[in-house]
């Protein structure tokens, strides 16, 4: 259906320029730094892959990676089904649609550090509505002292923050399904679950891929909210990749290791996303 046309590159050129300006050149700088030991502008040595070797054996980094994977899987497992469920319950038309869109948009439009600040107070048992509600159930809730409470808080916060994104995408997918598909399923005697499984879910595959990928990327990069809310604590129990690496980089006062951390971090994200992307597209093709 599409013709081979290499002039299309001209149309892609502006994107290339602007992204290269932002991504390639800084990335090259990082790669350059990462193979050196830098004491000052005129005092640097080539160290090869030394920093990488050191980092890959780093226990703290490995623990952070483990926590990161746990966190990302957890929020995805909650947000995706919850988002689809909410999208199914949204009204199809009428004045209430715009109203619902605005409410859904609110968490998405809040700057990430504001989200952290808000939840920092909201989840406190003494002065926050959410924390007080849990405390009222007779639970001794304190996210800055108890690891489980801290995890609970950040997961709930992330669900609050990002479920709307999945809802909006899934809603758009559902709206695009022609009524004839529902009619056919009804005529065939399909149950509600079968309608979901065989009509709605296959049609949602495309938008859900975008949604899941965005959520995966952003959850792997989560930083601002957590710095404010838990600061990675208690201990380093909620310290994920971003924070661990920033802490290390600042602690080192050396551009070399900091740069190699960044490269490794980037590679981890790209690898995870790539694996995920491939498995989603494979699953769709193989269905």
């Amino acid at each position, binding site marked *: 259906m599409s013709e081979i046309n290499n002039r299309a590159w001209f*149309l892609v050129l502006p994107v290339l320029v602007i992204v290269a300006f932002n991504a390639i050149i800084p990335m090259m700088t990082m790669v350059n730094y990462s193979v050196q030991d830098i004491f000052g502008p005129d005092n640097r040595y080539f160290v090869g892959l030394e920093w990488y070797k050191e980092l890959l054996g780093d226990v703290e980094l490995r623990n952070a990676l483990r926590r990161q994977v746990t966190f990302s899987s957890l929020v995805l497992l909650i947000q995706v089904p919850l988002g689809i469920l909410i999208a199914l319950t949204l009204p199809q038309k009428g004045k209430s649609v715009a109203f619902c869109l605005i409410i859904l948009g609110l968490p998405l439009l809040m700057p990430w550090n504001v989200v952290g600040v808000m939840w920092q107070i909201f989840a406190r048992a003494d002065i926050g509505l959410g924390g007080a509600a849990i405390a009222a159930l007779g639970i001794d809730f304190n996210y800055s002292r108890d690891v489980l409470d801290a995890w609970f808080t950040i997961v709930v916060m992330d669900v609050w923050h990002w479920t709307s994104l999945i809802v909006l995408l899934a809603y758009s997918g559902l709206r695009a399904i022609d*009524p004839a598909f529902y009619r056919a399923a009804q005529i065939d005697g399909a149950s509600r679950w079968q309608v979901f499984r065989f009509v709605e879910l296959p049609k949602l595959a495309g938008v859900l891929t975008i949604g899941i990928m965005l959520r995966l990327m952003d959850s792997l990069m989560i930083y601002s909210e957590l710095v404010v809310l838990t600061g990675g604590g208690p201990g380093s129990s909620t310290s994920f990749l971003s924070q661990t690496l920033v802490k290390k980089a600042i602690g080192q006062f050396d551009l070399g290791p900091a740069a190699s951390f960044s490269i490794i971090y980037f590679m981890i994200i790209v690898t995870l996303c790539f694996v995920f992307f491939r498995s989603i597209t494979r699953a769709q093709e193989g269905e």
Partner: protein
Amino acid sequence: MADVTVNPKADATPPDSIALKQEGSAMLRARANRKPLVKMAILTLFFVFLLAPIYWLVVMSFKTDTEIVTKFTLWPQEFTLANYKTIFTTHSWWSSYINSALYVTLNTIISLAVALPAAYAFSRYRFLGDKHLFFWLLTNRMTPPAVFVLPYFQFYSAFGLIDTHIAVAIAHCVFNVPLAVWILEGFLKGVPKSIDETAYIDGYSFPRFFTTILVPLIRSGIGVTAFFCFMFSWVELILARTLTTSDAKPIVAVMTRVYSGAGIEWGLIAAAGVLTLVPGILVIWFVRNHIARGFAMGRV
């Protein structure tokens, strides 16, 4: 007697209003057995969950700091507008909102302007390396700002762009442009290729075709894309903070200064936080129909 030669085969008119009404009711009927009460309950619960923290933020913004940290009160005991007054009368506060709005707008415009032709290319042509290019674009969406601030700072310093709006606007392109290409490509795929061909046969040049035919056709898609660009640029903190020092300092960065200080002024932060929601609400309000329609096209 002209009707003698009416040719019924030519009767291929699009569905008239009656047919449209029927489709609407088809959807209603097919979904009628979905227990509306349960649906309402789920939706209400979720909205309560979404609104509760925001409610708390709004209430906090009208409280004094003493009340916030010492008492648990569901609404302000000593109602005060002092927090808002501080923001509206302090130059560094209110100008930071303008700074944010400026670079976010700039970013949205740049992102759309460069993403549209690229999305068109991806949707219409196959060219050398297109698949790789697409995934490479996506990887840029994955660049974690937290660990890339240093090269960014150095790089933008080298061009003398530090503390300018355009710097932040361009830096935010790193995650918004790939997203914009991704979303727009979906919308453009929904535009039949025959429209392009007809336009070329009618003698349209590519730029004229693009701006007068294609763009209006997918304006809902552009609305949705603009919404996402606005959103991700508005909420980003790290790059915006790194690339600005005073003249272009955005609201998100000014806020971090407040809470990293000794005594945290919660009320002030809450008020500032509430105000960060206002532009977003305005944007959604103005593009709500586009968004609803764009979402209805199901190409997001």
